[in-house]
């Protein structure tokens, strides 16, 4: 009887100590507070804003409306979405076809060359995006470097006027986002079990059949992650379209920027952002469902 009481008392003290022990909650507080106040709350406000009415002159009026969303359905704006989507698809395909073989071959390099090559891919990624766009301006400019070279070797006889055109924007997009695709493909190829390919070859598959039946499937997570990492930013990179397209190419990003800075229609810009965000979240969600991976491969 006495010992039972004692053990119950002991249990009490144990619980008290157990609660007292974990003080680590204090260290996550900054992250919690910061995330709630400066990420979650602003996003919530974006949703709210997208249902408010635009004021006559400046600012917003607290009146509920669905107009902002209905406005998106206007052909002009729908067309922008279509064009953005097109651009994003072309960009993604471009990076995939150019980047996949590179990432794949990179993983097969000997160890020392591999890390050197890795460095070569990472450096442009770390360099200022604007600087790289500027480089393309110099190259594309009428009578610029590219024209001079092409005319010099006699391929063309007059300037191509590449700058401020759709292809220029596409090249800029592919160029900016290529490292994401390469790194994603690389990281999943690098982890691949090569004996599977050998097994396929052993079972009679040709080099190409083995590649299409085994390698592609094994590196699929990397491909998917690359697609996400390229597709999502390409919907919003307005400054590339701005600089290399010279206002001729209008993407959703440009539309939002215009609404914010010249149109001053914030609620409409908010609605556009919400649609874009829902769309991209859906893509990430599908990616997670499809691969079961939480973090995107090769992001860091």
């Amino acid at each position, binding site marked *: 009887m006495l*010992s039972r009481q*004692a*053990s119950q008392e*002991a*249990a009490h*003290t*144990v619980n*008290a*100590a*157990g609660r007292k*022990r974990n003080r680590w909650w204090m260290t996550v507080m900054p992250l919690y507070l910061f995330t709630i106040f400066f990420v979650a709350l602003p996003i919530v406000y974006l949703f709210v804003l997208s249902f408010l009415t635009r004021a006559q002159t400046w600012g917003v009026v607290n009146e509920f409306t669905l107009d902002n969303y209905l406005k998106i359905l206007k052909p002009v704006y729908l067309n922008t979405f279509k064009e953005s989507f097109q651009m994003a698809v072309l960009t993604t395909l471009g990076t995939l076809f150019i980047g996949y073989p590179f990432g794949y071959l990179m993983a097969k390099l000997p160890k020392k060359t591999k890390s050197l090559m890795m460095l070569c891919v990472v450096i442009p990624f770390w360099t200022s995006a604007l600087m790289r766009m500027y480089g393309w301006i110099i190259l594309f400019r009428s009578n610029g470097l590219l024209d001079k070279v092409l005319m010099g070797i006699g391929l063309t006889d007059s300037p191509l006027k590449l700058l401020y055109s759709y292809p220029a924007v596409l090249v800029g997009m592919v160029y900016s986002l290529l490292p994401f695709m390469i790194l994603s493909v690389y990281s999943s190829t690098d982890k691949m079990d090569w004996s599977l390919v050998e097994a396929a070859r052993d079972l009679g598959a040709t080099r190409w059949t083995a590649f299409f039946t085994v390698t592609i499937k094994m590196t699929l997570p990397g491909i998917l992650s690359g697609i996400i990492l390229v597709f999502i930013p390409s919907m919003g990179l307005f400054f590339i379209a701005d600089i290399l397209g010279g206002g001729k190419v209008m993407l959703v990003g440009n539309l939002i920027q215009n609404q914010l800075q010249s149109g001053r229609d914030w609620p409409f810009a908010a609605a556009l952002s919400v649609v874009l965000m829902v769309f991209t979240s859906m893509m990430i969600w599908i990616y997670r469902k499809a691969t079961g991976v939480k973090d995107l491969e090769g992001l860091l």
Partner: protein
Amino acid sequence: MSNETILELKNITKSFGDTQVLKGISLSIRQGEFITLLGASGCGKTTTLRIIAGLETPDNGNVYLNGTDVTTLQPNERNVNTVFQNYALFPHMNVFSNIAYGLKLKKVPKQEMTHRVEEMLELVQLAGYGTRMPSELSGGQRQRVAIARAVVNNPQVLLLDEPLGALDLQLRRQMQIELKRIQKRLQITFIYITHDQEEALNMSDRIAVMNQGTFEQIGTPNEVYYHPRTSYAARFVGTANLIPGRISRIEGQTAFVDVSCSAAGPAVQLPACITGRQASLVRPGQAVTVSVKSENIRLQKEPGSGLRLAVIEKNFAGGMLRISLDGGTLGELSASRQGIDAAFEAGEMVTADWEPEHGVLVDLEGTDSQSRGPAAAGREQDA
């Protein structure tokens, strides 16, 4: 070794989620003792150790260190040190700093600290290795550093969690001897965890055989080996044959057990000894299990008073010849002999029996932690 109790566990229980890992274990350990918790993985031995170290808190029950209740104290508040399974050497500190870490926390003066660390390095035969980084050491050397790092603090109890598990066989044997030497020299109480019966039998003063969160048996290596109290302990330590039968008569210290190898076949009478408190627990007609170690099974070619069995195969391993016998309904029995030469061939019929003192009645009293309360356990160990 004195008779003073240094550490006492009373009725400890611990659950993780829905699984109860410790089912009310009690144990008292004497100052200077080398005690081994022996059991298969998942039996709760590591949890027991972590509770003693303060890395886990038990759901119920208490831990007493030198008579004081330390159940809820943090690991840094009790004078107990641990040698971790994977050594857990700090990779960013050199050997000297690793060993000195505990002393630094206790603010031991620099000169004394250096002196004590050097002394420890000498003790574990690593003099001159102070400036090496852990990554530059071999497995055996890391092991020694881990021991030195714990021992330098003069703990009242040293906990060792399968410290030799990662080493190869030869090194393990060598380290066994060395550990025992260190323990003898420093007179520190060792609580040692292993699943290796050889280690346990070699080094321990006492062995606690653990199974599913309880102690099956606590006793000296001799007791555990020759007088297993349960069939689990019998099977876990050494190679034992567990033979079921029925007691036909009792003569003094010897019980004669009817054993048969087939459902309808005739029973053979084989002996088992009755020890101590078992006398009051056995009576004729009772169903019992007799444990006989494989080296104690006597074999002869001529028919006799034992079990008549066929030899299945012979197997030579580790200096011993193992002879497998077809025991019919008893299952496969095994006998072992020194050396490779044995006159029996596969397929041959042999007669098997054993001396009365080699037959041990098991599973009569339940396990050590079930049968007796903590008070009783304490009393018996004090005696």
